[in-house]
Protein backbone atom coordinates (compact mmCIF):
# COMPACT_ATOMS: atom_id res chain seq x y z
CA UNK A 1 0.00 0.00 0.00
CA UNK A 2 1.25 3.50 -0.70
CA UNK A 3 1.00 5.04 2.76
CA UNK A 4 3.87 7.34 2.13
CA UNK A 5 2.08 9.15 -0.67
CA UNK A 6 -0.70 9.94 1.80
CA UNK A 7 1.93 11.22 4.21
CA UNK A 8 3.29 13.59 1.58
CA UNK A 9 -0.16 15.03 0.90
CA UNK A 10 -0.75 15.56 4.60
CA UNK A 11 2.54 17.38 5.22
CA UNK A 12 2.21 21.09 5.37
CA UNK A 13 4.87 23.58 4.40
CA UNK A 14 6.40 23.80 7.88
CA UNK A 15 6.88 20.07 8.10
CA UNK A 16 8.45 20.01 4.66
CA UNK A 17 10.96 22.70 5.59
CA UNK A 18 11.73 20.80 8.79
CA UNK A 19 12.44 17.64 6.85
CA UNK A 20 14.68 19.48 4.42
CA UNK A 21 16.61 21.09 7.26
CA UNK A 22 16.96 17.72 8.92
CA UNK A 23 18.42 16.39 5.71
CA UNK A 24 20.80 19.34 5.43
CA UNK A 25 21.99 18.72 9.00
CA UNK A 26 22.81 15.13 8.18
CA UNK A 27 24.76 16.13 5.08
CA UNK A 28 26.65 18.87 6.95
CA UNK A 29 27.56 16.55 9.79
CA UNK A 30 28.90 13.99 7.35
CA UNK A 31 31.00 16.64 5.62
CA UNK A 32 32.30 17.92 8.97
CA UNK A 33 33.32 14.43 10.04
CA UNK A 34 35.16 13.97 6.76
CA UNK A 35 36.96 17.30 7.04
CA UNK A 36 37.76 16.53 10.66
CA UNK A 37 39.38 13.27 9.60
CA UNK A 38 41.45 15.11 7.02
CA UNK A 39 42.73 17.47 9.72
CA UNK A 40 43.39 14.78 12.32
CA UNK A 41 45.23 12.42 9.99
CA UNK A 42 47.07 15.02 7.95
CA UNK A 43 46.08 13.24 4.77
CA UNK A 44 43.99 14.73 1.96
CA UNK A 45 42.29 11.37 1.60
CA UNK A 46 42.25 9.55 4.93
CA UNK A 47 40.17 6.64 3.67
CA UNK A 48 40.91 4.96 0.35
CA UNK A 49 39.57 1.94 -1.46
CA UNK A 50 42.02 -0.58 -2.90
CA UNK A 51 41.44 -0.65 -6.65
CA UNK A 52 43.77 -3.37 -7.90
CA UNK A 53 45.13 -6.75 -6.93
CA UNK A 54 48.74 -5.64 -6.84
CA UNK A 55 48.99 -6.05 -3.08
CA UNK A 56 47.41 -9.46 -2.80
CA UNK A 57 47.11 -11.52 -0.72
CA UNK A 58 47.27 -8.78 1.88
CA UNK A 59 44.75 -6.42 0.23
CA UNK A 60 42.16 -7.18 -2.39
CA UNK A 61 40.12 -4.95 -4.65
CA UNK A 62 37.39 -3.44 -2.54
CA UNK A 63 39.24 -3.36 0.77
CA UNK A 64 39.26 -0.13 2.73
CA UNK A 65 42.46 1.48 4.01
CA UNK A 66 42.85 4.09 6.74
CA UNK A 67 45.74 6.48 6.22
CA UNK A 68 47.75 8.99 8.19
CA UNK A 69 50.19 11.45 6.74
CA UNK A 70 52.01 13.15 9.58
CA UNK A 71 54.73 15.41 8.31
CA UNK A 72 57.32 14.17 10.79
CA UNK A 73 56.71 10.49 10.15
CA UNK A 74 59.76 9.21 8.34
CA UNK A 75 59.32 7.00 5.28
CA UNK A 76 60.92 3.62 5.91
CA UNK A 77 61.37 0.41 3.98
CA UNK A 78 58.49 -2.01 4.46
CA UNK A 79 55.83 0.63 4.99
CA UNK A 80 52.71 0.60 2.86
CA UNK A 81 52.22 3.99 1.24
CA UNK A 82 49.47 5.42 -0.91
CA UNK A 83 50.82 7.76 -3.53
CA UNK A 84 49.75 9.59 -6.65
CA UNK A 85 51.89 9.83 -9.73
CA UNK A 86 52.26 13.42 -10.88
CA UNK A 87 49.53 14.21 -13.36
CA UNK A 88 47.38 11.21 -12.51
CA UNK A 89 44.41 11.08 -10.20
CA UNK A 90 44.43 7.45 -9.21
CA UNK A 91 46.03 6.66 -5.87
CA UNK A 92 48.28 3.60 -5.81
CA UNK A 93 48.81 1.44 -2.74
CA UNK A 94 52.24 -0.24 -2.67
CA UNK A 95 55.12 -1.01 -0.35
CA UNK A 96 58.36 0.97 0.05
CA UNK A 97 61.35 -1.17 -0.89
CA UNK A 98 64.16 1.37 -1.10
CA UNK A 99 64.84 4.55 0.82
CA UNK A 100 67.64 7.09 0.38
CA UNK A 101 67.49 9.99 2.81
CA UNK A 102 69.88 12.90 3.00
CA UNK A 103 70.94 14.61 6.19
CA UNK A 104 68.68 17.57 5.50
CA UNK A 105 65.60 15.36 5.41
CA UNK A 106 65.30 15.16 1.62
CA UNK A 107 64.03 11.70 0.91
CA UNK A 108 63.56 9.64 -2.23
CA UNK A 109 62.09 6.18 -2.30
CA UNK A 110 61.02 3.34 -4.56
CA UNK A 111 57.86 1.28 -4.27
CA UNK A 112 56.62 -2.10 -5.46
CA UNK A 113 53.37 -3.98 -5.21
CA UNK A 114 53.70 -7.22 -3.23
CA UNK A 115 51.99 -9.11 -6.01
CA UNK A 116 54.00 -7.51 -8.83
CA UNK A 117 57.16 -8.98 -10.28
CA UNK A 118 58.87 -5.64 -10.82
CA UNK A 119 59.11 -2.36 -8.97
CA UNK A 120 56.97 0.66 -9.79
CA UNK A 121 59.42 2.57 -12.00
CA UNK A 122 57.17 1.70 -14.95
CA UNK A 123 54.27 3.44 -13.24
CA UNK A 124 56.07 6.67 -12.44
CA UNK A 125 56.17 9.65 -14.78
CA UNK A 126 58.43 9.55 -17.82
CA UNK A 127 61.98 9.96 -16.57
CA UNK A 128 60.98 9.79 -12.93
CA UNK A 129 62.94 7.18 -11.00
CA UNK A 130 61.97 7.93 -7.43
CA UNK A 131 59.05 9.12 -5.38
CA UNK A 132 59.23 12.00 -2.94
CA UNK A 133 57.29 13.00 0.15
CA UNK A 134 55.08 15.29 -1.87
CA UNK A 135 53.75 12.34 -3.88
CA UNK A 136 52.52 10.59 -0.76
CA UNK A 137 48.82 10.73 0.10
CA UNK A 138 49.35 8.79 3.30
CA UNK A 139 50.62 5.69 5.02
CA UNK A 140 48.33 2.72 5.56
CA UNK A 141 47.74 2.29 9.26
CA UNK A 142 44.60 0.16 9.40
CA UNK A 143 42.35 -1.77 7.11
CA UNK A 144 38.90 -3.25 6.74
CA UNK A 145 38.17 -5.92 4.16
CA UNK A 146 35.34 -5.76 1.57
CA UNK A 147 33.74 -2.54 2.87
CA UNK A 148 35.01 -0.44 -0.03
CA UNK A 149 33.27 -2.65 -2.61
CA UNK A 150 30.25 -0.34 -2.41
CA UNK A 151 32.16 2.55 -3.98
CA UNK A 152 33.58 0.31 -6.69
CA UNK A 153 30.10 -0.94 -7.57
CA UNK A 154 28.80 2.62 -7.62
CA UNK A 155 31.59 3.59 -9.99
CA UNK A 156 31.11 0.70 -12.34
CA UNK A 157 27.32 0.77 -12.29
CA UNK A 158 26.17 4.42 -12.11
CA UNK A 159 22.50 3.38 -12.23
CA UNK A 160 23.06 1.67 -8.89
CA UNK A 161 24.48 4.92 -7.50
CA UNK A 162 21.46 6.97 -8.58
CA UNK A 163 19.04 4.37 -7.30
CA UNK A 164 20.79 4.34 -3.94
CA UNK A 165 20.74 8.14 -3.71
CA UNK A 166 17.08 8.25 -4.66
CA UNK A 167 16.15 5.73 -2.00
CA UNK A 168 18.21 7.55 0.64
CA UNK A 169 16.71 10.89 -0.34
CA UNK A 170 13.16 9.55 -0.23
CA UNK A 171 13.75 7.97 3.15
CA UNK A 172 15.16 11.09 4.75
CA UNK A 173 12.55 13.43 3.32
CA UNK A 174 9.59 11.30 4.15
CA UNK A 175 10.59 9.83 7.48
CA UNK A 176 8.57 11.40 10.21
CA UNK A 177 9.75 11.73 13.74
CA UNK A 178 6.73 11.19 15.93
Amino acid at each position, binding site marked *: SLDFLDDVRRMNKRQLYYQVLNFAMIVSSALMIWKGLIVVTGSESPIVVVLSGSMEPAFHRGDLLFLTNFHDDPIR*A*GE*IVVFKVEGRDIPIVHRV*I*KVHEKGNGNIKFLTKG*DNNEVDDRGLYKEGQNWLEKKDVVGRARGFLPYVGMVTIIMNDYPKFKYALLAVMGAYVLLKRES
Partner: protein
Amino acid sequence: LRKNVEDFTGPRERSDLGFVTFDITADILNRKNGLQTFRNKNTSIIFDWNVKQLFLYLSAEYSTKNNALNQVVLWDKIMLRGDNPRLSLKDMKSKYFFFDDGNGLKGNRNITLTLSWNVVPNAGILPLVTGSGHVSVPFPDTYETTKSY
Protein backbone atom coordinates in the same frame (compact mmCIF):
# COMPACT_ATOMS: atom_id res chain seq x y z
CA LEU B 1 67.45 -14.72 15.06
CA ARG B 2 70.72 -15.28 13.27
CA LYS B 3 72.09 -14.50 9.85
CA ASN B 4 75.43 -15.16 8.17
CA VAL B 5 76.63 -13.48 5.04
CA GLU B 6 79.40 -13.26 2.49
CA ASP B 7 79.61 -10.44 0.02
CA PHE B 8 81.01 -9.13 -3.22
CA THR B 9 80.55 -5.80 -4.95
CA GLY B 10 80.47 -4.76 -8.59
CA PRO B 11 80.03 -1.39 -10.32
CA ARG B 12 77.12 -1.04 -12.73
CA GLU B 13 76.21 2.22 -14.42
CA ARG B 14 78.27 4.18 -11.95
CA SER B 15 76.31 2.95 -8.93
CA ASP B 16 77.56 0.33 -6.56
CA LEU B 17 75.85 -3.01 -6.73
CA GLY B 18 76.27 -5.33 -3.79
CA PHE B 19 75.79 -9.06 -3.70
CA VAL B 20 74.92 -10.72 -0.47
CA THR B 21 74.22 -14.33 0.38
CA PHE B 22 72.68 -15.13 3.67
CA ASP B 23 71.17 -17.66 5.96
CA ILE B 24 68.15 -16.87 8.03
CA THR B 25 67.12 -18.73 11.12
CA ALA B 26 64.16 -17.16 12.78
CA ASP B 27 61.46 -18.05 15.16
CA ILE B 28 58.67 -15.56 14.78
CA LEU B 29 57.16 -15.07 18.17
CA ASN B 30 55.28 -12.15 19.46
CA ARG B 31 55.04 -11.57 23.13
CA LYS B 32 52.37 -8.99 23.68
CA ASN B 33 53.55 -7.02 26.65
CA GLY B 34 51.05 -6.30 29.35
CA LEU B 35 48.36 -8.57 27.96
CA GLN B 36 47.14 -11.53 29.91
CA THR B 37 47.27 -14.61 27.77
CA PHE B 38 45.87 -17.92 28.72
CA ARG B 39 48.33 -19.74 26.57
CA ASN B 40 51.60 -21.29 27.45
CA LYS B 41 54.21 -18.61 26.89
CA ASN B 42 56.29 -20.96 24.78
CA THR B 43 53.80 -21.27 21.96
CA SER B 44 54.03 -18.71 19.21
CA ILE B 45 51.10 -16.35 19.48
CA ILE B 46 51.88 -14.13 16.54
CA PHE B 47 49.23 -15.85 14.43
CA ASP B 48 46.27 -15.03 16.62
CA TRP B 49 42.62 -14.96 15.48
CA ASN B 50 43.06 -11.61 13.79
CA VAL B 51 46.25 -12.20 11.82
CA LYS B 52 45.79 -13.05 8.16
CA GLN B 53 49.44 -13.07 7.12
CA LEU B 54 52.89 -11.66 7.79
CA PHE B 55 54.90 -9.89 5.14
CA LEU B 56 58.52 -10.54 6.06
CA TYR B 57 61.39 -8.59 4.60
CA LEU B 58 65.11 -8.46 5.05
CA SER B 59 66.40 -4.92 4.78
CA ALA B 60 69.90 -3.53 4.66
CA GLU B 61 70.40 -0.20 6.39
CA TYR B 62 73.53 1.90 6.06
CA SER B 63 74.91 5.44 5.69
CA THR B 64 76.96 6.81 2.88
CA LYS B 65 78.64 10.08 1.97
CA ASN B 66 75.72 10.91 -0.33
CA ASN B 67 72.88 9.93 1.92
CA ALA B 68 72.58 9.93 5.71
CA LEU B 69 70.22 6.97 5.69
CA ASN B 70 69.72 4.24 3.14
CA GLN B 71 67.40 1.28 3.37
CA VAL B 72 67.21 -1.41 0.72
CA VAL B 73 64.92 -4.41 0.90
CA LEU B 74 66.90 -7.42 -0.24
CA TRP B 75 64.40 -10.18 0.17
CA ASP B 76 60.79 -10.68 1.17
CA LYS B 77 58.37 -13.48 1.84
CA ILE B 78 54.71 -13.78 2.55
CA MET B 79 53.93 -16.04 5.48
CA LEU B 80 50.28 -16.99 5.57
CA ARG B 81 48.40 -18.03 8.64
CA GLY B 82 49.01 -21.73 8.98
CA ASP B 83 52.55 -21.64 7.56
CA ASN B 84 55.37 -22.79 9.77
CA PRO B 85 56.52 -19.79 11.83
CA ARG B 86 60.04 -21.13 12.06
CA LEU B 87 62.29 -20.09 9.21
CA SER B 88 65.45 -21.92 8.37
CA LEU B 89 66.80 -20.71 5.06
CA LYS B 90 70.35 -21.29 3.93
CA ASP B 91 72.44 -19.80 1.16
CA MET B 92 69.76 -17.43 -0.02
CA LYS B 93 70.55 -14.90 -2.69
CA SER B 94 68.96 -11.50 -2.48
CA LYS B 95 65.71 -11.28 -4.41
CA TYR B 96 66.23 -7.69 -5.45
CA PHE B 97 69.28 -5.90 -6.78
CA PHE B 98 71.17 -4.18 -4.01
CA PHE B 99 71.95 -0.93 -5.82
CA ASP B 100 73.24 2.01 -3.88
CA ASP B 101 72.36 5.55 -4.87
CA GLY B 102 75.92 6.35 -5.77
CA ASN B 103 79.12 4.59 -4.75
CA GLY B 104 78.57 4.18 -1.04
CA LEU B 105 78.93 0.43 -0.76
CA LYS B 106 82.61 0.21 -1.54
CA GLY B 107 84.54 0.03 1.68
CA ASN B 108 81.43 0.57 3.75
CA ARG B 109 82.13 -1.21 6.98
CA ASN B 110 78.73 -1.04 8.53
CA ILE B 111 75.72 -2.39 6.69
CA THR B 112 73.10 -3.67 9.09
CA LEU B 113 70.75 -6.41 7.97
CA THR B 114 67.50 -6.71 9.89
CA LEU B 115 64.49 -8.93 9.50
CA SER B 116 61.17 -7.15 9.95
CA TRP B 117 57.58 -7.92 9.20
CA ASN B 118 54.27 -6.28 8.53
CA VAL B 119 51.38 -7.88 10.38
CA VAL B 120 48.30 -7.95 8.14
CA PRO B 121 45.19 -8.46 10.25
CA ASN B 122 41.82 -9.75 9.10
CA ALA B 123 40.67 -6.26 10.04
CA GLY B 124 42.30 -3.52 12.05
CA ILE B 125 45.70 -1.93 12.60
CA LEU B 126 48.70 -2.70 10.35
CA PRO B 127 51.80 -2.72 12.54
CA LEU B 128 55.41 -3.04 11.41
CA VAL B 129 57.52 -5.12 13.72
CA THR B 130 61.29 -5.38 13.71
CA GLY B 131 62.78 -8.67 14.75
CA SER B 132 65.34 -8.72 17.51
CA GLY B 133 68.82 -9.52 16.36
CA HIS B 134 70.60 -8.09 13.40
CA VAL B 135 73.85 -8.64 11.58
CA SER B 136 76.46 -6.10 10.55
CA VAL B 137 78.12 -6.71 7.22
CA PRO B 138 81.23 -4.97 5.93
CA PHE B 139 81.76 -4.57 2.20
CA PRO B 140 85.26 -4.92 0.79
CA ASP B 141 87.30 -1.99 -0.53
CA THR B 142 87.63 -3.31 -4.04
CA TYR B 143 85.30 -4.17 -6.83
CA GLU B 144 85.03 -7.60 -8.35
CA THR B 145 84.70 -7.98 -12.08
CA THR B 146 82.05 -10.18 -13.69
CA LYS B 147 81.52 -12.68 -10.94
CA SER B 148 78.91 -15.20 -11.94
CA TYR B 149 75.96 -14.77 -9.66
